[in-house]
């Protein structure tokens, strides 16, 4: 035993102290999945305080509406809301917070982001009481359209809803109605009519479709929506869930891939779409250098600052392909309450409060987004999208709600990119996807 060993002993003792420190700091971190019960939220909440982590940043249009609602809420109920306007990364910050006892009482975000983090991991409180709570004399379950809730998008493993949406987003094929009034008068209803429109645009010397090909999520919309048109809402998720991979042999799957291939081979996509960097292509579209763009209902807000003067936003739905009812894409933005929150009642009451028509109308007219209430008015630029959602018999989520770990990013996007960027044919795509999906479920089954 020499000198170094003796030093080691004192260092080891120090390390022991350090370890003890860290374990106490994270105390109680692992007993995470606490199933919370439904609570009665009708009583007085005066004097109670909640912590709200917002997905909006100070100054954003939505933030202004929510801040006004919170001011009214505090005045009406006597509760106090302490808000952190964190921005979109709030859901990423939520993950580590959920492992401590220091959780926010209320968070908001898109369903796509909150579901993997809090909804599917059993970390959210059931909000059944919110759905039966009344705003403007109507219970919230009646305020939110049935078709939004009927597919169970908000339900956790216990069958109770864990999210209350206050706003929605959707997509459409966007165009400038000032330049193409004919598309507003008679939008193409079927795929064949759509191809006709593209041919005419091409013949007139206008690039038919602009697409930022570096955003895999945008590229995927073409194949996924085609498949949903051919096989109905939920069919992409069913395709992905098939562990044998045989579902990829269905003729509709190949057909959907062929539609995408046709767009590429037909030269309908603006040249350079496969080698540019977002937002180059949507800028070019807003400049009038291409006629159409498949993108979200946020397009008017996102491109408004650089669109040519006089640009009149309008959109039509992804064309129908078979006799299946054409569902509209509807993604949700809403509130969730972490199960560990100690202020369940005021948090759930605030979630309900945002569905008052006063704030729903403000979301539509001031923030110019789509409120969840169908009776709320919206800005002119998104009227076409709202009409399409109202008319659609069913709705589907982005990527048909597929959130299996890594499936979209590591399995689907790379191969779908190859198809959309013209590097593989429809048949090659289907073959590769089948093999990759079999491997995926072998590894993750």
């Amino acid at each position, binding site marked *: *035993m020499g*000198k170094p060993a*003796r*030093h080691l002993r*004192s*260092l080891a003792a*120090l*390390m022991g102290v*350090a*370890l003890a*420190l*860290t374990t106490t700091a994270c105390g109680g971190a*692992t007993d*995470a*999945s606490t199933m919370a019960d439904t609570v009665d939220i009708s009583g007085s909440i005066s004097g109670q305080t909640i912590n709200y982590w917002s997905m909006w940043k100070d100054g954003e249009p939505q933030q202004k509406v929510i801040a006004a609602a919170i001011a009214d809420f505090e005045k009406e109920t006597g509760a106090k809301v302490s808000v952190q306007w964190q921005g*979109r990364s709030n859901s*990423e910050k939520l*993950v*580590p917070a*959920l*492992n401590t006892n220091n959780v926010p009482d209320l968070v908001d975000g898109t369903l*796509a*982001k909150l579901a*993997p*983090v*809090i909804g*599917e*991991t*059993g*970390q959210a409180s059931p909000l059944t009481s919110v759905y039966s709570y009344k705003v403007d004399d109507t219970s919230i379950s009646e305020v939110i359209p049935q078709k939004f809730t009927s597919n169970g998008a908000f339900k956790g493993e216990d069958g109770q809803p864990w999210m209350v949406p206050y706003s929605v987003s959707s997509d459409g094929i966007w165009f400038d109605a000032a330049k193409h009034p004919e598309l507003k008068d008679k939008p193409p209803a079927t795929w064949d009519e759509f191809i006709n429109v593209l041919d005419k645009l091409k013949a007139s010397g206008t690039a038919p479709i602009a697409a930022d090909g*570096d*955003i*895999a*999520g945008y590229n995927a919309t073409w194949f996924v929506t085609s498949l949903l048109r051919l096989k109905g809402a939920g069919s992409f998720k069913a395709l992905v869930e098939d562990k044998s991979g045989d579902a990829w042999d269905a003729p509709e799957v190949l057909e959907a891939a062929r539609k995408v291939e046709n767009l590429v081979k037909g030269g309908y996509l603006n*040249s*350079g779409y*496969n*080698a*540019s*960097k*977002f*937002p*180059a292509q949507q800028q*070019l579209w807003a400049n009038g250098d291409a006629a159409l763009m498949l993108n979200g209902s946020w397009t008017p807000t996102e491109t408004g600052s650089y669109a040519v003067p006089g640009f009149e936003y309008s959109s039509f739905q992804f064309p129908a392909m078979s006799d299946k009812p054409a569902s509209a894409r509807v993604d949700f933005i809403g509130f969730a309450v972490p199960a560990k929150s100690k202020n369940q009642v005021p948090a759930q009451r605030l979630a309900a409060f945002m569905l008052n028509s006063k704030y729903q109308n403000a979301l539509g007219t001031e923030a110019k987004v789509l409120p969840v209430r169908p009776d709320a008015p919206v800005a002119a630029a998104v009227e076409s999208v709202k009409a399409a959602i109202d008319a659609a018999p069913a709705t589907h989520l982005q*990527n048909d709600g*597929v*959130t*299996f*770990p*890594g*499936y*979209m*990013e*590591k399995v689907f*996007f*790379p191969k779908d*990119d190859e198809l959309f*960027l013209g590097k593989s044919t429809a048949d090659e795509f289907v073959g590769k996807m089948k093999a990759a999906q079999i491997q995926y479920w072998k*590894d*993750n089954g």
Partner: protein
Amino acid sequence: MSLSLKDHRVNRTADRGPESGKPLQHTSRRGSQRGGSSIDVQRKKLLVPFVGPAFVLYTVLFIVPALGAVWISLHKWAGSGPMKFVGLDNYGRIFRDQLFISSFGNTLLLLFVVGAAIFILAFALTLVLRDMAGKKIARNVIFFPHLINALVFGVLAGFIFNPGGMVNSLLAPLGVTDPPKWLAQDNIFPLIMVTLVCTTTGYFTTILMAGVDRIPPYYYEDCALAGATAFQRLRYVILPLTWDVFGTCAVLWTISSVKIFEIVWVFGGSSGAGVPPTQSWTAAVYTYVNAFSGQSTPAYGAATASAVLSLALISVLVVLLRRAMRRDAVEF
């Protein structure tokens, strides 16, 4: 055991030495091991108060999280909620994942190919700049790109290489009507490599120059008198005298190259709207996408497994590098 070996060695040196046979020397050495000189005692006393705080902080902030990561990598876990123990499954899955292999390959490309380019250029620049007039200004100019946030290069890449961007606008008057698709998915990683060479070379040039500047001028005068060529001067004076600086730079690059992430993230996929194309992923990006892509249920187990593998890679490479670069430091 160790004591007897030491005794043996002490005896042998004592035998050889001129004043050998003095038993006094022997006992005094053993004595110092037991009680120690007063300096030794003081040193031991000060170890805990001086090293202690840093050691505790280091353990809490680095060692414990690293051990925690190893623990998490043995589980299937979505970041919160229940953890399921799966043993080494995550590691097995990563090794079977073609994407991890190709991401890892990209990391190795950065480490070795970009690293070699950086060091050859940095060394060449060092030699040129040594004799150049206004070398201080030149040194600042080439160091400057290193100060700029990688995000800027990601955004600039769009301006420069988009189909309607600067490069194509400059090529058009030259009659190039069908320019290459600069930003196509397969071209992004080579572009990232070039950008990294441009931004990092200045940094290492600065460090190497500090080493070269330390060499006393009379060595060069000696070279001149002996009629040495420029190459001989490099081979026999500059290289041996800057070898330790060179070795440190190599270790620095190894560590930073394995962690390269943000430049890949902003070059493709852009502005948080998506994930970069898989062709340009590095091991660090692979880790991030598994945990935080925001598009699917987080897989913390797989993410930490790949982070642990990266850590293991860095450790092995650094140890190998230190071995390969080991020379007796030349005192001057």
